[in-house]
């Protein structure tokens, strides 16, 4: 896992780290998106999950031989001499709830990454984010289009249909991206930060 590229150190003046969480179902492209914009190759770390669902800050779980671990990926972007932004890819499924406080606590906000072929994978994440009051935007990862001979019914749904299917409130931005491409992922992150900025001025929020 370790490589020279991963050893690119932070600046010695770095003293103020920030988090953005990219959440979505398995295989939706979270790690691809992290890797597209990260200055280091995405790293994988893990946290302990016990069968009893003990909170992650209860280290007695460590001694539990029945403990399993859940891996999650992350990368980083140096913003300036002092600030560095970490991007975490978070599994959106309910059984990973125990990770959520650790990932979302103190985060700037979240990007829900969506695969239109598996929209239902996003329901739980969106519900939890709304419940927690974590601001977020939704980004549809447009995978390479359907095969030329695919029936019309298989064509990717429009953003309006995705919004309706996800029952997204009007104030939550919904954008398209290609998680493989750096400019596209950069644009998604900028969309999120602009959304967070706009929330400071609710009278002008559409």
């Amino acid at each position: 896992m370790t490589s020279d590229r991963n050893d690119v150190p932070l600046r010695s003046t770095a003293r103020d780290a920030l988090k953005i969480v990219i959440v979505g179902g398995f295989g939706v492209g979270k790690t691809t998106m992290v890797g597209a914009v990260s200055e280091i190759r995405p790293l994988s770390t893990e946290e302990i999950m016990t069968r009893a669902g003990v909170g992650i800050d209860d280290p007695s779980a460590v001694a539990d031989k029945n403990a399993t671990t859940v891996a999650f990926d992350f990368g980083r972007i140096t913003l300036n001499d002092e600030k560095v932004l970490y991007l975490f890819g978070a599994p959106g499924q309910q059984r990973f709830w125990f990770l959520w406080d650790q990932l979302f606590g103190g985060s700037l906000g979240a990007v829900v990454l969506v695969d239109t072929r598996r929209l239902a994978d996003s329901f739980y994440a969106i519900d939890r984010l709304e419940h927690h009051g974590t601001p977020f935007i939704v980004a549809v990862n447009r995978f390479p289009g359907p095969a030329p001979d695919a029936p019309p019914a298989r064509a990717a749904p429009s953003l309006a249909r995705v919004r309706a299917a996800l029952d997204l409130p009007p104030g939550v931005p919904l954008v398209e991206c290609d998680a493989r491409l750096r400019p596209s992922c950069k644009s998604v992150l900028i969309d999120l930060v602009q959304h967070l900025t706009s929330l400071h001025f609710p009278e002008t929020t559409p």
Partner: protein
Amino acid sequence: MNPRDVGREDPDRLFIVTGGRADTDGPVLDLVSLIVGGGAAPPGTPSEQAGVLARCRDFPVSVAELSAHLDLPVSVVKIVLRDLAREGRVTVRPPVSAPPRDQLPDLETLRQVLVGLHDL
């Protein structure tokens, strides 16, 4: 996302690292708290502590990166770090601009993030 059995991999390692403690004294640590070390590990330093000290001796390193590089779960790394912090062998730079729960990030922070992202 790939649950696996910790015990099968290395039965007693985590227990030894932590001493089996449920010890949460010491500084509050976030995944992105930045750790700065104070020097080389003296002889006899437990290997996990030595691993942390070697990683953060010259540059700040986040808790998440220490966990990834040392191949230890985040909560185990936090226990090691709390021990080192209590002994004054590492200092912690907390994420001071992180928004408190139910609050938006402040506008100056958002502005700096936006500038940094545009420069990508």
